[in-house]
């Protein structure tokens, strides 16, 4: 099978690689480009661990071909820190609110929450839960993930989040 030259912009950097048309975006990121922050959980479009931001949309990269992402603008968990290398608001929120335990779901959760907060900077708890319905966590029970996102949302709005983690 002949290979396709895929070029895309990832975390503000031009990247490229050769792959078969059947190569899934998540494998292209992890194996061709060595960006292993994006995880593979279920590989069946259910868990959201593989979520990346693609042209301003959260997508499950296990259910997209790398060739479909040709020319796209992609953000992965590796692009979530501040420019100076310190933790971004969501990363800080997850740390402060204990939004992770094993951490397997965290890259997908953070990348998804990033788009959610871009679209809705001041979400209610219900809107957060509806907004992360495509991301499964087997550890936390979600309570502290919701708080982590609220923490980040408050910080991005220049406010302080006063609740404690559960």
């Amino acid at each position, binding site marked *: 099978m002949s290979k396709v030259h895929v070029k895309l912009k990832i975390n503000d950097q031009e990247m490229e690689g050769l792959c078969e*048309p059947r190569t899934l975006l998540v494998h292209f990121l992890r194996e061709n480009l060595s960006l292993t922050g994006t995880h593979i959980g279920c590989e069946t479009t259910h868990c959201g661990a593989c979520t990346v931001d693609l042209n301003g949309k959260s*997508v499950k990269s296990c*259910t997209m*071909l790398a*060739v479909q992402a040709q020319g796209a603008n992609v953000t992965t968990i590796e692009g979530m820190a501040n420019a100076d290398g310190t933790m971004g608001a969501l990363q800080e929120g997850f740390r402060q609110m204990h939004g992770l335990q094993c951490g397997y779901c965290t890259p997908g959760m953070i990348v998804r929450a990033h788009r959610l907060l871009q679209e809705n900077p001041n979400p209610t708890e219900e809107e957060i839960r509806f*907004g992360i319905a*495509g991301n499964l966590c087997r550890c936390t029970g979600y309570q502290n993930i919701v708080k982590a996102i609220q923490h980040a949302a408050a910080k991005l709005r220049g406010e302080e989040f006063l609740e404690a983690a559960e």
Partner: protein
Amino acid sequence: MIPGTFDYFRPRSVAEATKFLHKSKNASVLAGGHSLLPMMKLRVAAPSALVDLAGIAALRGIKKVGGNIVIGAMTTQHEVLASALIAKHVPLLHEAAQLIADPQVRYVGTLGGNVANGDPGNDMPAVMMALDATYKITGPTKRRAVKARVFYKGLYETALKSGEIVTAIEIPVPGKHGFAYEKLKRKIGDYATAGAAVVLTMKAGKVSACAIALTNLGATPLLADAAAKALVGQAPDDKAIGAAVAAARAIMDPANDTRGTPEYRKSVGGIYVERAIRCAIAAAAG
């Protein structure tokens, strides 16, 4: 899980796409890929080539043309939800889109893919039947239009012929009406265990027009014609609603799968038809 090998083609126009589909033996259209790619990963589907419609601008967008809302086939569920035009003129579609899958799937999954897929678990086909929508289709040599109500022929079997593409979905804007889409699912993001769409008009305390369609209660989405007729011309009291529910249950023939036994699904199917009818009546009266 990786799909089998295939060629990938990204045409710039519908004509180019249909031409390619026509001359290739076992090619599939790729829209959002959120039904097709999972099936290819399981090797249930193994097309020799994929014709990706993502590069065809003419297949996108939501417009009001005369008395119709016309939605390009490649419009995503996310775009449907964000559309003020749809929320205003066909609120049933807005309500149903919200009940499909999860945010990630809605960003990518398209309306055209949802109606063309032919899986009885898809929510949009019943909604389109209830709204009496028409699918605009382009083939290698000609164009045609097929009503949603006669499009579904069997499990994964539709009126689409080889080389044909659904280009748009045309929905006649209903007049003042009540509507509901009631869907039972095991968890958020799941396909329906049972679902019912109702569009209904009231005049002087009686139901003057009604359409009812069912999701995942047979090998195809079902138009519950007799159920709707049981309500038309009646004051919607318990007796009339009971007769409609019984008529809807009579055509249900759900599969025995992980979502339940046929008996269970017919039982809850009736309950969801009743809920949708009562909801639509309340909305139509209000």
